[in-house]
């Protein structure tokens, strides 16, 4: 496969870094729980991208297997997390994280 002649691993790591930082930024910047959730997904994908590029660099499958497991965890997390969000919205009629501070001392 004569692919990616001049693209180095650093390019992918750079992209992964930017996406990860974007995810962190979104988590801090927004207060809608759903958007925050999406930013988590963005961060997970940034990591996935890094793992796949490592896998490509080493020429083995382990990195891609890890991506599978991350996908599994992400899917499970989304299922439960969105169910929690639904319940929250039903009870509080908001998904604003700033107002959900009942447990704060």
């Amino acid at each position: 496969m004569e692919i990616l002649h001049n693209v180095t691993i650093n390019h992918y790591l750079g992209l992964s870094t930017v996406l990860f930082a974007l995810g962190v930024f979104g988590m801090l910047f927004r207060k809608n729980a759903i958007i925050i959730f999406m930013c988590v997904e963005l961060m997970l994908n940034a990591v996935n991208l890094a793992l796949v590029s490592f896998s490509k660099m080493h020429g083995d499958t382990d990195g891609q297997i890890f991506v599978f497991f991350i996908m599994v965890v992400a899917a499970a997390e989304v299922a439960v997390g969105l169910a929690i969000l639904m319940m929250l919205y039903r009870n509080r009629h908001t998904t604003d994280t700033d107002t959900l501070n009942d447990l704060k001392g």
Partner: protein
Amino acid sequence: MLTEYAFWFLSFVAVFSGIAVILSKNPVYSVLNLIMTFFSIAGHYFLMNAQFLAAVHIIVYAGAIMVLFLYVIMMLNLNNLETEKRSNVLKLSAVVAAGLLMTVLSGAVQTADQITLVEKTTGAAGMVENLGIALYRNYLLPFELASVLFLAAMVGAVYLSKKNLNETQA
């Protein structure tokens, strides 16, 4: 050369739609932008010859997870809830924090060796057969545990989203 252009194009799409996820007022636009990001990441997987992973990525992320997001947003009708009253200080601190993190990470990446991807690859790592062998020989236990995790998540999600638990139990 073509693949290089493809890399840069996909990267720009990923980053810009990632920014749009955070900055759009309407959550539905956020979801659609996130889907765009996922598509471009899937494109990257294709470029790296991880075809199976790319397909699974689209099926799982774009086909299932983001649909769930869209469902929740549409069903809860969250479109017009967005009244961001977060103070500018907090917003600024978010920018600073994320910027610092990015600086640190990119600093770490900068110092790494420049390794061209093509050198060490056989190109077959992303093929279904190799992935299957690795998954079912070396990672069988985590695989089975993942299915248990899924089951637990499914039960949990169903239990949580029941409308009124007391009524259904009675």
